[in-house]
């Protein structure tokens, strides 16, 4: 059994720094690389891509990345865990297998394929069986929106990943795997921790929470002393250096930019936090009020003392459903009287929308430079404010009305207040809205499957 395991974060979301995972593999010693590709909105986008093309529906960036780093990973025995499979886990795994073959790595790469999270085809079956699937926030029943559902995925934890590692997987691909499970699984596997050792499971989960947003734990988006954080252009993504006794240290590779210190780790610990006593994952209920932090020198923070409680009988399900249409458009007004001009333009626009009889659920106006982030708390802007961006958004059930709105912004340039610009991008895009329906489902109804694909 290893005494120490290093798990590196390579991607905080789909669209994060493309070079980060490459730098993690080549910039120093690591044992595992974890990559989180899925935000809530991602699954519904992927379902749509797959509806158009049966071979799509996963993060293709991941395949390009693996083409680049797989030879390094095989040589250095670095294992990769990712939820890049989206709604086509098999397709993603096969693309990685083909890449491995092309790279001349046949016989050297086992790909763990974790499925069972996608329950879209089973929703009707569950409702027919009388399983209550209700919105956790509103109490609404799934049957009320069933015909509009675009994707439905259970958040799977670390168990199937540990199984795949046990079967010798070098790369693991899954769909809606929890971000935290991608870090927890290697520790469970390497240290032989059991899933009933709640404090250890909570420890690995919190380690995962700290590094799941990439550089947000190593100096990125860090408010504390932000102006002194060195070389963010070459920011080093965080690494969990875990020990078999349950302690771990957050660090980053030597010679990289950014900063790992206690304030940065505290900021990330609190990110997207609910009740700190009960951070619920499929694996455990972790207690953030038991976390202790210790400064261990430059770019090293030790985390210890973590306690957890038994997990629940339920999985969380993330369901996305079509909920109408929206569009957002902008124009920029300049000094003098920039704010007054932008306000008048908004008034004219709204009057025209009314006259056209367009129906919207919400029309939102923001004045960027004045109140788009801090609202009324920012107070009145100075009279000589150099410029203000008018930003108007609408949403509604009728697509034609939203499209009509997108044609009402440009005319303001020649028919509204003066010294206006910023319309070079053309008409705003009409986008379909995906709303979320978070629910719980008994674990006993879900079957996860772990297969090994050999390159």
């Amino acid at each position: 059994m290893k005494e120490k395991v290093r798990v590196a974060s390579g991607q905080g979301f789909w669209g994060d720094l493309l070079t980060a995972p490459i730098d993690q593999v080549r910039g120093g010693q690591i044992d595992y690389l974890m990559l989180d590709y899925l935000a809530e909105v991602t699954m519904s986008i992927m379902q749509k891509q797959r509806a158009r093309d049966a071979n799509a529906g996963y993060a293709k960036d991941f395949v390009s990345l693996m083409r680049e780093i797989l030879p390094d990973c095989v040589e250095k025995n670095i294992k990769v865990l990712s939820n890049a499979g989206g709604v086509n886990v098999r397709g993603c795994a096969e693309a990685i297998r083909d890449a491995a073959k092309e790279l001349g790595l046949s016989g050297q790469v086992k790909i763990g394929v974790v499925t069972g999270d996608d329950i879209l085809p089973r929703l009707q079956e569950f409702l027919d069986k009388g399983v209550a699937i209700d919105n956790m926030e509103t109490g609404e029943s799934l049957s009320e929106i069933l015909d509009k559902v675009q994707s439905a995925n259970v958040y799977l934890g670390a168990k199937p990943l540990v199984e795949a590692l046990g079967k010798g997987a070098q790369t693991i691909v899954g769909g809606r795997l929890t971000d935290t499970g991608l870090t927890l699984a290697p520790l469970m596997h390497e240290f032989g921790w059991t899933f009933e050792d709640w404090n250890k499971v909570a420890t690995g989960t919190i380690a995962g929470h700290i590094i799941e947003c990439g550089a947000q734990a190593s100096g990125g988006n860090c408010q504390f002393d932000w102006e002194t954080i060195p070389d963010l252009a070459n920011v080093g993504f965080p690494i969990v250096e875990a020990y078999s006794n349950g302690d771990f240290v957050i660090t980053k590779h030597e010679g990289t930019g950014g900063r790992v210190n206690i304030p940065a780790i505290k900021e990330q610990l609190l990110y997207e936090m609910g009740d700190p006593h009960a951070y619920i994952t499929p694996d455990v209920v972790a207690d953030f009020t038991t976390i202790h932090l210790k400064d261990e020198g430059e770019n090293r923070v030790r985390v210890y003392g973590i306690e957890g409680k038994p997990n629940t009988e339920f999985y969380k399900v993330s369901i996305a459903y079509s909920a109408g249409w929206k569009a957002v458009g902008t124009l920029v007004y300049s000094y003098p009287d920039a704010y007054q001009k932008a306000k008048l333009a908004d008034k004219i626009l709204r009057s025209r929308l009314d006259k056209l009889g367009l129906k919207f659920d919400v029309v939102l106006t923001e004045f960027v430079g004045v109140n788009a982030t801090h609202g009324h708390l920012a107070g009145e802007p100075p009279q000589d404010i150099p410029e203000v961006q008018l930003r108007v958004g609408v949403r509604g059930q009728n697509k034609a009305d939203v499209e009509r709105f997108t044609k009402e912004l440009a005319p303001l340039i020649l028919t509204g207040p003066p010294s206006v610009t910023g319309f070079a991008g053309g008409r705003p895009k009409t986008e379909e809205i995906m709303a979320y329906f978070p629910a719980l489902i008994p674990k006993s109804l879900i079957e996860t499957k772990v297969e090994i694909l050999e390159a």
Partner: protein
Amino acid sequence: MKIELLNLAHARSGDKGDTANVGVIALKDEFYALLVREVTAEKVKEHFGVMVKGAVERFELPNLGALNFLLHESLGGGGTLSLMTDAQGKTFSTALLRMKIDVSDEEAKNLSIS
């Protein structure tokens, strides 16, 4: 005297659906008790006014010298439903740090707050 929270704490915020969370962290350990006393759920609700339509919940993390606030119904529906520039609530952190805190002159002196 009134002190801007910015001088006592740093913060990070994020979203869960239509709820924004703001983690407020004491800049020095000795400021934590003052935060617990002054930055209450009620005062935070009052501070945000119309920006937060639902309830404000507060949780204490003395081990991190931090408070976590949940601001319900504050993101225009949340996720892709929201039309807001800040649909993910990323700048609610600094919006909360604008809050003015009551500190007596003696306390300010004891805590070396200028």
